[in-house]
């Protein structure tokens, strides 16, 4: 049965009747990224007004591959189990060239993680759950059919004008968070250049409903017999829906190619003559890789596709956007709650511009491999594919999409100068491991809260204000298999300080309350040796 999108109720905004016109936090765009950011902020105690020009969730499945790190973030936001239960779990894939299979791959070869490499799930389900979760916090004012039509920038606030079915109103905000997608209205209204590459190719993306049992693996074909000289991708989603991508070439007419009379024969050729299917959603895309020069523009911050756009091979759009939201949420919450200077928000640029560049680079290279743009490029590409079937050395050169991995912010200014050891680096996301909790199997990441957390691998501690101490020891979180210590490379007595977004910010060979406190202050962007209390006292 096709998915029936929910319709969210429009309510007349109070500003139209002279109500409050100023809000600390306004999110523009109620898609995957905007809703994730709003939920994260709300759970950190920050009230959010969310403006969305539509009244429903995404049309079509769109971002379907939710990567391990994104699932861990959804887990922290309380939606992880739901994603696992509904989604199609996968870790492996196969690559085909012409008539034969070249090789298979496994993206998560080791066991002992709560979440798999990927879960396939239609974007609209995640958006529906995020809307429910936002409502449940009581701190997110979801304003559907509220379209931003003007943006004003000021040194310490921003203002927007908003069109509604009942007319236009104005509101001001301390922070305007633009999560309004690749065609961002806020970006256009601010006239910011969004530059990069357009790939001279077109791809048909179709969701088909069928009962046939293909594998849950990611299957990718180069130049298959059913679609000569082009590429094809088949991937399973929940509800008997399958994602099919077919490369069409630059000369294809996008409107013509969307017609069922054109799509059905192409899909039938791929699936075989005996497979019955129905089309649920069809779209034709030209891929682009581009980004804003900066994401932070005073009190306006761009998050997700509004800041950077990638081609879909590699599942780096939705995953990159959720990871942007994760990076920004705690920082902006700390600023509005008076725990950090405003400059902390600037580190979102320091950490997420390189992340976007990494995603753009991988996405560009995959698209270049799939769409060779010169005769020489095609000769090298086909040589790699030819050799890869028989010789292992050529397989790492085959690029059907380098699937989303979290960015490791090794050069972040927030990483404190603690100790270093092999195994994990400051800037990396926390790694999961199986543990025992009160004798029962559990996961390490479930015990990491939404503030600063110190993982202590044995040894004594004293409380550190503002830091939750998580002891990894037989009488606390029991690392029975030794995988936590191994994955963190932690020496006995070693400590790992995690930021509120679950990224490692400092390592210590042994517990030292003063060093932990200093590293936390550093990660909050507080200037060294000038405690807030002393500065306040001087002012007083």
């Amino acid at each position, binding site marked *: 049965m096709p998915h029936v999108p929910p319709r969210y109720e429009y309510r007349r905004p109070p500003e139209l009747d002279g109500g409050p016109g100023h809000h600390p936090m306004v999110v523009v765009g109620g898609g995957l990224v905007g809703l994730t950011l709003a939920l994260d902020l709300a759970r950190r105690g920050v009230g959010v007004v969310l403006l969305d020009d539509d009244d429903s969730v995404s049309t079509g499945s769109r971002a379907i591959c939710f990567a391990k790190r994104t699932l861990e973030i959804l887990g922290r936001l309380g939606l992880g189990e739901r994603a696992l239960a509904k989604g199609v779990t996968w870790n492996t894939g196969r690559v085909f*060239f*012409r*008539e*034969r299979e*070249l090789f298979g791959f496994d993206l998560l070869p080791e066991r002992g993680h709560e979440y798999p490499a990927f879960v396939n799930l239609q974007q609209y389900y995640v958006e529906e759950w995020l809307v429910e979760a936002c409502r449940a916090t009581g701190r997110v004012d979801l304003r559907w059919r509220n379209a931003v039509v003007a943006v004003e920038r000021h040194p310490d606030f921003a203002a927007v004008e908003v069109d509604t079915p009942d007319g236009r109103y104005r509101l001001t905000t301390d922070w305007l968070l633009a999560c309004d997608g690749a065609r961002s209205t806020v970006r256009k209204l601010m006239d910011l250049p969004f530059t990069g590459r357009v790939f001279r190719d077109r791809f048909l993306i179709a969701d088909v409903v069928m009962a046939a049992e293909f594998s849950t693996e990611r299957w990718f074909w180069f130049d298959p017999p059913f679609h000569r000289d082009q590429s094809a991708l088949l991937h399973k989603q929940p509800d008997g829906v399958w994602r099919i991508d077919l490369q069409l070439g630059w000369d294809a007419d996008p409107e013509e190619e969307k017609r069922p009379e054109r799509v059905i024969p192409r899909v039938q050729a791929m699936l075989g003559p005996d497979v019955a299917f129905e089309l649920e959603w069809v779209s034709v895309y030209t891929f682009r890789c581009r980004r804003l020069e900066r994401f932070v523009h005073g009190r306006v911050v761009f998050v997700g596709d509004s800041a950077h756009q990638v081609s879909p091979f590699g599942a780096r759009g939705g995953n990159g956007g959720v990871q942007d939201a994760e990076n920004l949420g705690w920082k902006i919450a700390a600023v509005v709650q008076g725990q950090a200077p405003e400059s902390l928000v600037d580190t979102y640029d320091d950490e997420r511009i390189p992340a976007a560049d990494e995603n753009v680079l*991988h996405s560009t*290279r995959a698209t*270049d*491999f799939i769409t*060779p743009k*010169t*005769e*020489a*490029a095609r000769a*090298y590409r086909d040589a*790699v*594919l*030819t*050799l890869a*079937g*028989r*010789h*292992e*050395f050529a*397989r*790492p*050169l085959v*690029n059907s999409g*380098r699937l989303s991995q979290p960015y490791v912010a090794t050069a972040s200014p927030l990483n404190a100068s603690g100790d270093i050891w092999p195994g994990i680096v400051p800037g990396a996301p926390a790694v999961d491991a199986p543990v025992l909790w009160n004798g029962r199997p559990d996961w390490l990441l479930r015990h990491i809260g939404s503030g600063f957390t110190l993982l202590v691998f044995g040894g004594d501690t004293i409380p550190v204000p503002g830091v939750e101490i998580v002891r990894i020891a037989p009488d606390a979180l029991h690392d029975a298999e030794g995988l936590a210590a191994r994955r963190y490379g932690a020496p006995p007595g070693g400590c790992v300080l995690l930021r509120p977004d679950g990224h490692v910010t400092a390592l210590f060979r042994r517990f030292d309350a003063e060093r932990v406190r200093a590293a936390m202050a550093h990660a909050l962007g507080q200037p060294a040796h000038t405690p807030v209390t002393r500065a306040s006292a001087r002012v007083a």
Partner: protein
Amino acid sequence: MPLDLAPRLDDPDGLFAALVAAHEGLDPPASRRLDAQLVLLLANHIGDTEVVLDAIRVARSTDGGDAP
């Protein structure tokens, strides 16, 4: 020393992109000349004729992707 067919490249995607970029703006004959020069340079670096002959045999026998 036999021809090593195990994966050895530290940055496969970067290498592939660099090879493709090296050919940008060249017509097919110029591309052929560039590849010939690259093979000679790398053969000299390897410095072992037997290894290069092995590579020639592997390349000649791996054809079209559907060889047995």
